[in-house]
């Protein structure tokens, strides 16, 4: 049932991702003081935004699971968090590359967004050991949902706290995400967000389809063994 619409979504994703990459390299102007390196911004920031939204979506699916007791919501929550973790790895790596190029260090602690992202990422990494050390499938679903909700609520608080800790000495570093971006940059940035969101949704759908299919296969096999 998740395979419905998979083909159009995949095609749309391929097209938008191609447009996005083309815009990054050929359309967006070079940054005045960072030059070519700044283009990693169009990859790094949309990925980070989408990954955080994916974490929060995992929490919302967890909430729906607890309210409805429908196991498919737990699967949706799990796949959303799983995808966000993968996106999060890329965010941390691109962030480190950008930091090295722009500020000369692989890691800078006075960049609040990067630091909060790391803390959130570390928290969500515990989702796997927690989930897979519970054997009873019903309980596994419920406990994972509880984790997803608590962690989803933790995301904004953590961002507020880290930002407050830095705002003593540093003004907002990433002011270029705000209104000061020239038009072409902003357009590329928004296309980037669209492309990464589509990518996330497509990968999520693929994973859901595959999980669903293997579950169905298991069920059929069990039935076959019962009749044989």
């Amino acid at each position: 049932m998740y395979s419905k619409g998979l083909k159009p979504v995949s095609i749309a994703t391929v097209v938008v991702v191609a447009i996005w990459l083309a815009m990054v390299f050929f359309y967006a102007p070079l940054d005045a003081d960072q030059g070519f390196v700044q283009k990693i911004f169009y990859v790094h920031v949309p990925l980070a935004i989408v990954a955080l939204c994916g974490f929060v979506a995992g929490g919302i699916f967890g909430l729906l699971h607890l309210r409805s007791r429908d196991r498919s919501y737990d699967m949706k929550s799990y796949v959303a968090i799983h995808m966000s973790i993968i996106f999060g790895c890329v965010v941390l790596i691109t962030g480190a590359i950008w930091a090295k190029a722009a500020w000369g260090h692989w890691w800078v602690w006075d960049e609040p967004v990067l630091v909060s992202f790391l803390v959130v990422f570390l928290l969500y990494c515990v989702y796997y050991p927690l989930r897979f050390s519970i054997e009873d499938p019903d309980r596994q679903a419920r406990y994972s949902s509880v984790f997803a909700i608590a962690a989803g609520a933790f995301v904004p608080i953590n961002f507020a706290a880290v930002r407050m800790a830095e705002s003593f000495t540093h003004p907002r570093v990433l002011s270029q995400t705000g209104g000061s971006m020239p038009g072409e940059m902003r357009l590329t940035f928004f296309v980037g967000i669209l492309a990464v969101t589509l990518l996330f949704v497509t990968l999520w759908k693929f994973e859901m389809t595959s999980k669903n299919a293997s579950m169905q296969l298991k069920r059929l096999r069990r039935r076959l063994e019962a009749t044989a």
Partner: protein
Amino acid sequence: MIRTAAAILRKDLAIELRTKESVPAMTLFTVVVFVLFHFGLDRDSLDGELASGVLWVTLLLAAVIGVSRLFATEREQGGLDGLLLAPVDRTALWLAKATALFLYLTVLELVAVPAFAVLMLGPDLLPALPVLIPVLLLANVGLAAIGALVSALAVETRARELIVPLLLLPLVVPLLIASASVTEPVLRGSQQAEDLGRWLGLLSLYDVVFVLIAIAVFDFLLDD
């Protein structure tokens, strides 16, 4: 619900008073960590941000011990089944466990903070107390709320000794940021804390959010 919670809390405190399992272990642990920090940093006395960092990280690590022992007696002696069979509200169970943890932490700090002042702190502790005490209490509320939730989350897993610190420590990063920042100037010996209201506001926000979340989701744990 309050009466049920009070009954469970009385039971927990009675067990703790008889066995003396959690609080003495946590206290001993903090003193050992202070000694470790003394040698690790090779400093006779600390002040300012170093002092507040050492104090808060040590307290949070000690809290991990308390959290991982919180449901220990229930699990090891099969008391959890009894509690779950009894027709009591799960929220009462959370309230009792969180209150127990709050009391453990408070008792721990009654010993650990003076010990810290004697062993490591350069400036006098007394002038810092008016700021330190409300911060400690607010941090304890947040730690107790999230700690009881994490403890219940981990109790049914196979690797619970592993899950508790991994889960708890990232979750308390905002608490650490707020508490360490607010105690840093007073541990340097200055009378006035910077941005006291803002940090206490963040601590209270954290407490309120996680108390509400814990109450909202705790029913779904330990549900079978």
